[in-house]
């Protein structure tokens, strides 16, 4: 121990205070696998370094390397030479192109050997274990997974016997130290063990075991090899140079070392006996190849760890990059899917909306070609999308006016829309169906612009208005029927008066005629007298005829045509009809006519009806008025240049406040026998003439109803 300490101290001093002569020169470093600890390494190899330093006049130093440091030391050129076991050498040879200079001669049990092997053994008393084929299912112990002599050589052998040490044993363990393996088998803890050659012999020599207690499995006899052996022989540790080390230096070192095989002070006789020419390491390569170990298996923990250690920053970066890429792409994918789904949703919604509206909708491009159409359009027109899309819609839908005249496409509102961008509403037109018939439509045509604001066509939304038109016609007819019915009703109420009115001239005519005959028969008549009478008869007959004509006109169903009418004349006609009522009611009629009244465009019978209704109401209103106060005043007047006003004023009891509210509503009446239709129908008529009917306030007794009618300027100027 003392000598070791001194040696170490010496080395430390040498490192810290190198001799002045070497101070400027770079030390030559020999990396040595420090498999038994740094102290042992220095102990074993410092003599060699010293020998080389002395021989070559350079400073050689030993650098202990543990298993993990070897790779990095080579890679970073921390050492110039390397002394490692055959396994590591083969790895480094493949990896860094290091090359062996010499192979160690191991001094073992007084034998100097440059090869070694593995031995498999069991206890001698294990009768059932006699060769390798017997060890399946048994427990097995070796030195170390990475130990060439302590495991891998036997593994190769087992492999050749189709035994997988990791699978075919009941248990496998690694003791770390050769002696422990031997002891574990001796104590029976494991059935079979393996160690490198010469261990058993050395232990026996040291008195630790008795070789006779053991049985060697698959023993191999070798002429030049003195130890128990179960495997091939493999070369011992090589002394190798790194690629950067100069060949000249390497050559000098090799020569020096080979010379060293001659006993030399630097040799540690207890450890090795010198160096030989380099052996072939092919068997080691083969072993690794067969067992698929590094360097022939990148996946060995060593290589992977190495890669991880070497490139961890890159790996981490790559991993992060891949991870973030994955996250990003999944995000993009998700986004894309969402987009796709929304697009599909939108399209579906678009279609759904388009196809669920009742109105027909179609698009037109700037060429007038139909671009799309919805389901309602198909239903309404009978045109299928394939009939219209891409075709000029005007020529299919819109070619002819309702009256049969052709509708040129340059007059088509749809075409105009995308030329001037003005939205158009057409209230009354027809579209043509596929079956050749047409139907009334109202439609709008609006221009469509793209995102840049450029007009790309127009969209037409249309509606079949057949039903509405029919309803309008029905409503118009209903109003006309109601109005007519009211006239008939009025006439019914007036019938006795009218009959009387007709009776008078008829009576007079009959009587005058009879009298004339009498006179002629009796010869008492003279011509002058008779002419006089006949003129009377003529006049009376004409008067009757007039009344009847008026009645017939009044009772007739209305004609929708309007004509220019003179309201003064119309009022006189009405007064003629209600003359019996006026007479019976003892009412004085006052006319206040504007003699320059302009004509109005109206339906005469309807206006007749209004005046008649208002006059009869006026007469009825004066029933309770003293006879001398009963005055019906009818006035006409111009209201500016564009309207005429007719006023009908009575001296009756007036319109009570509680009736005023719904005065013009149907079935509102203050009369015992009235239907309450007169004013509502009159209101309807005046409304239809764009006029206004209203009750005016009156300071004294009675009521004034007025109605205003617009004058058709154009017609009056004719």
């Amino acid at each position, binding site marked *: 121990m003392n000598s070791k300490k001194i040696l170490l101290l010496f080395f430390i001093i040498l490192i810290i205070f190198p001799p002045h002569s070497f101070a400027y020169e770079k030390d030559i470093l020999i990396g040595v696998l420090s498999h038994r600890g740094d102290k042992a390494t220095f102990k074993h190899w410092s003599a060699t370094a010293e020998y080389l330093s002395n021989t070559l006049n350079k400073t050689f130093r030993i650098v202990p390397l543990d298993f993990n440091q070897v790779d990095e030391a080579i890679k970073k050129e921390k050492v110039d030479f390397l002394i490692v076991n055959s396994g590591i050498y083969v790895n480094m040879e493949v990896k860094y192109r290091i090359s062996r200079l010499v192979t160690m001669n191991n001094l073992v049990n007084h034998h100097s050997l440059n090869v070694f092997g593995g031995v498999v053994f069991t206890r001698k008393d294990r009768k059932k274990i006699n060769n390798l084929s017997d060890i399946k299912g048994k427990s097995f112990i070796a030195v170390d997974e990475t130990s060439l002599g302590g495991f891998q050589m036997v593994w190769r052998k087992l492999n050749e016997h189709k035994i997988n040490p990791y699978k075919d044993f009941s248990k496998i363990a690694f003791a770390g130290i050769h002696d422990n393996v031997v002891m574990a088998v001796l104590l029976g803890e494991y059935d079979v063990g393996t160690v490198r050659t010469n261990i058993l012999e050395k232990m026996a020599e040291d008195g630790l075991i008795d070789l006779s207690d053991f049985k060697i499995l698959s023993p191999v006899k070798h002429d030049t090899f003195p130890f128990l052996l179960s495997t091939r022989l493999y070369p011992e540790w090589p002394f190798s140079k790194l690629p950067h080390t100069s060949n000249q230096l390497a050559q000098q070192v090799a020569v020096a070392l080979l010379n060293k095989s001659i006993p030399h002070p630097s040799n540690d006789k207890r450890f090795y006996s010198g160096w030989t020419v380099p052996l072939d390491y092919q068997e080691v390569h083969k072993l690794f190849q067969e067992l698929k170990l590094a360097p022939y298996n990148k996946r060995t923990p060593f290589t992977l760890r190495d890669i991880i250690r070497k490139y961890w920053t890159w790996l981490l970066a790559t991993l992060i990059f891949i991870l973030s890429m994955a996250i990003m792409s999944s995000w993009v994918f998700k986004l894309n899917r969402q987009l796709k789904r929304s697009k599909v949703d939108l399209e579906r919604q678009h279609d759904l909306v388009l196809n669920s509206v009742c109105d027909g909708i179609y698009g037109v491009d700037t060429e007038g070609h139909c671009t799309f159409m919805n389901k309602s359009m198909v239903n309404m027109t009978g045109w299928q999308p394939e009939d219209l899309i891409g075709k000029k819609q005007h020529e299919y839908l819109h070619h002819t006016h309702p009256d049969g005249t052709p509708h040129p496409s340059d007059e088509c509102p749809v075409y105009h829309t995308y030329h001037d961008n003005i939205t158009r509403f057409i209230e009354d037109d027809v579209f043509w169906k596929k079956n050749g018939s047409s139907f009334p439509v109202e439609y709008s045509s609006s221009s469509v612009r793209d995102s840049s604001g450029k007009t790309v066509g127009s969209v037409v939304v249309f509606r079949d208005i057949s039903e509405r038109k029919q309803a309008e016609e029905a409503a118009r007819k209903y109003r006309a029927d109601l109005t007519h019915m009211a006239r008939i009703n009025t006439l019914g109420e007036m019938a006795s008066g009218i009959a009387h009115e007709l009776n*008078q*001239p008829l009576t*007079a*005519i009959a*009587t*005058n005629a009879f009298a004339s005959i*009498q006179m002629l028969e*009796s010869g008492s008549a003279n011509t002058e007298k008779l002419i006089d009478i006949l003129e*009377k008869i003529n006049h009376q007959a004409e008067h009757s005829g007039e009344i009847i004509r008026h009645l017939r006109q009044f009772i007739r169903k209305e004609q929708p045509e309007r004509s220019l009418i003179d309201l003064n004349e119309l009022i006189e006609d009405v007064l003629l009809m209600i003359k019996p009522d006026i007479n*019976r009611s003892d009412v004085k009629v006052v006319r206040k006519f504007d003699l320059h009244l302009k004509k109005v465009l109206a339906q005469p019978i309807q206006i007749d009806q209004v005046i008649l209704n208002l006059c009869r109401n006026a007469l009825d209103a004066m029933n309770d008025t003293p006879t001398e106060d009963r005055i019906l005043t009818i006035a006409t007047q111009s209201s500016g240049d564009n309207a005429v006003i007719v006023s009908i004023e009575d001296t009756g009891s007036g319109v009570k406040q509680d009736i005023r509210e719904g005065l013009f509503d149907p079935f509102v009446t203050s009369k015992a026998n009235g239907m309450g239709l007169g004013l509502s129908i009159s209101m309807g008529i005046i409304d239809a003439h764009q006029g206004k009917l209203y009750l005016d306030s009156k300071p004294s007794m009675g009521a004034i109803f007025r109605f205003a009618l617009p004058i058709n300027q154009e017609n009056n100027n004719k």
Partner: protein
Amino acid sequence: MSNAATVFIVDDDEEVRSALQLLMESVGLPSETFSSAQIFLEQFDLNRSGCIIVDVRMPGMSGLDLQAQLATEKLHPPIIIITGHGDVPMAVRAVQAGAIDFIEKPFNNQAMLDSVHRAIEKDAQQRGEVSRLLDIEAHFNELTPREKEVFQYVVEGKRNKVIAIDMGVSQSTVEAHRAKVMEKMAAATLSDLMRMALLLDLL
């Protein structure tokens, strides 16, 4: 003013009025026209003979009102009602109130003339009856109170003897009064006297 039978026409309608007048003229009947019932009442002399043609419906006083007014008089010319719109109740009322006829316009002119002639005849008859009644009344008024008393008893069917006892006179006195009554009343028989008593409302 002569009292020749005249047709009085009351109608507010001038045409009808003049036509009727012409009709009357054509058969030689004198006629006078009035445009309303009021005017007729103001101007008409009840003693004049003939008939009245009146329209039911007129402003102011109607034909039926006029008829009612005339009915209060002892004697008036028969009334023919003409109407443009007669209904049965109105006709019944008019006839019950004494109208001789109810004619709807336009009427058959011959029927009208017949009706007019019938009315004039009736008027004449009415006028005859009325003048006889006036005569009887005049005769009755000529009787002394005693004679009126005897007249009363006689038409009540009492015998002379009973009358004499009731009056407290002799039977011959009663007979003398009775002869005087018969003579003054120009009655040939007792039944004549009874008829006169009926007209005089003594029974």
